[in-house]
């Protein structure tokens, strides 16, 4: 009796689990199939509606013209490459400069009042001016002053405007991160004899940056597109090149080319941000549990 019952007990223990797992897999497979069919039907219908509409041939000619696509591609691509380089350079400067501003704003004590005030004034002032206005003021205004020793390139000042504007926002992101570190961390660092700057540098900022990486990545995505605003200064970046093509041919396909190029870069960054944020959230939950 014991011998035959043992395998059956074993079976009894395993069966429901395997069964439920199989069921879950079947449901998962059915779910995927439904999702696939509904997606195909939905987007198929939308596409059909667009392609059969009366206006489509004209839209296609103006926006999705294969010939114009091929013709405008090299110039827009090389302009876009300039966007990418300007973005990378500006981003590095922003991350550093914003951190300095945030540190200045986080200093405590009456002695640091002027530094704190300067940081607050800078942030309020810059955040209150439309970015495009700042680009025009610096990009056209400063070179026009013809100051000795100052760079005259509109591109230089355009990037400077981006760095100044984004630093104000990014400084606030950093500051939120610094504020999110518990006060007891600051206190125990100070109790060991560390100065305010040492406390910021070794204790608060490393923890703060970890807390705000998703917000910083979000800023990346935003800057990656805003860098093209420098086109108003005549800098021949992606959007400007597309505009030049359009002005010459009265065809808007070049704008679509530029849009596709921006999407190719920004979508992966956006997906990465989501992935990182989710991973970070799970890790925190695991720690607190």
């Amino acid at each position, binding site marked *: 009796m014991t011998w035959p019952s043992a395998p059956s007990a074993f079976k009894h223990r395993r069966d429901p689990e395997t069964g439920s797992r199989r069921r879950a897999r079947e449901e998962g497979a059915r779910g995927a199939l439904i999702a696939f069919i509904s997606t195909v039907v939905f987007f198929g219908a939308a596409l059909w509606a667009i392609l059969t509409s009366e206006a489509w041939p004209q839209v296609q000619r103006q926006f999705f013209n294969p010939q114009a696509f091929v013709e405008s591609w090299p110039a827009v691509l090389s302009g876009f490459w300039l966007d990418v380089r300007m973005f990378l350079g500006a981003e590095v400067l922003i991350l550093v400069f914003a951190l300095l501003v945030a540190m200045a704003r986080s200093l405590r004590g009456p002695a640091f009042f002027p530094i704190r005030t300067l940081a607050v004034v800078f942030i309020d002032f810059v955040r209150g001016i439309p970015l495009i206005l700042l680009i025009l003021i610096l990009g056209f205004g400063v070179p026009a002053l013809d100051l000795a020793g100052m760079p005259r390139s509109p591109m230089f000042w355009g990037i400077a405007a981006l760095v100044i504007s984004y630093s104000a926002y990014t400084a606030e992101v950093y500051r939120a991160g610094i504020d999110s570190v518990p006060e007891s961390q600051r206190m*125990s660092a100070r*109790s060991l004899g560390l*100065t305010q700057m040492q406390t910021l540098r070794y204790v608060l900022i490393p923890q703060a940056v970890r807390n705000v990486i998703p917000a910083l990545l979000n800023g990346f995505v935003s800057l990656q597109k805003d860098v093209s605003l420098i086109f108003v200064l005549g800098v021949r970046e992606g959007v400007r090149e597309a505009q030049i093509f359009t002005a010459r041919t009265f065809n808007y396909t070049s704008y679509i080319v530029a849009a596709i190029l921006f999407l190719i870069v920004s979508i992966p960054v956006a997906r990465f941000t989501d992935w990182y944020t989710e991973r970070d959230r799970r890790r925190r939950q695991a720690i607190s549990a």
Partner: protein
Amino acid sequence: MTPPYPTPPTTRKLVVESCTKAFDDKVVLDGLDLQVDEHEVVCLVGASGSGKSTLLKAINLLVPIDSGRIVLDGETITDPGVNPNEVRAKMGIVFQSFNLFPHMTVIDNITLAPRKVRGVSKREAVERGEELLARFGLADKRNEYPERLSGGQQQRVAIIRALAIQPELLLLDEVTSALDPVLVGEVLALIRELKETGMTMLVATHEMGFARETADRVAFLHAGRVWEEAPPSQLFTAPQRPETREFLRRITEAGRL
């Protein structure tokens, strides 16, 4: 462990003179006087909110006092011209909630202040930190991050971090209050061991049993003052003032004595 000081000379290490401190209109310290001699262990007891924690933070200059003065080794540390960072480097303070730096390993937690405040070389700081860890049975935790340690281990690391700056005075602020009862013992054992080395300590605690056997003197805080102070044998068995008796009665009722 043999005390490094064969015949301890008695000198005033710390003098707190009529200190007052109010948060908004809530008076926490109300003309408090206290002295701690070198190599002495003084336990602060009293109800929550009696000012124990504020007093320790005031001594560490983390909380500015409203009036009165605090003297460490003959130097008035509450004078405006004094550099608080230099004062703080002379004493260690450990809090209820450990406050280890979560982004640093145990050894980095311990060596940060010696390196950045005392200017000790990294190698020397690490060597000394390892010595301390070994002495208190935590050598194998050297490279762990705080979140991977038990509460008792974290608190012992926090005490070692405070010891690493080679303080002349150690302030302990209810260091066992946040711990599971089973972990309290290992932290108290460490403090007893420190007493044997002659460390001067001011200890705010709810552990009456610990105060009774370890303290040279117990100070009962009430209404922002040292209401009564005496050697533990005397304070716990023959308290002189009614408030002290009431406090001890409630502690006994709660089963903590």
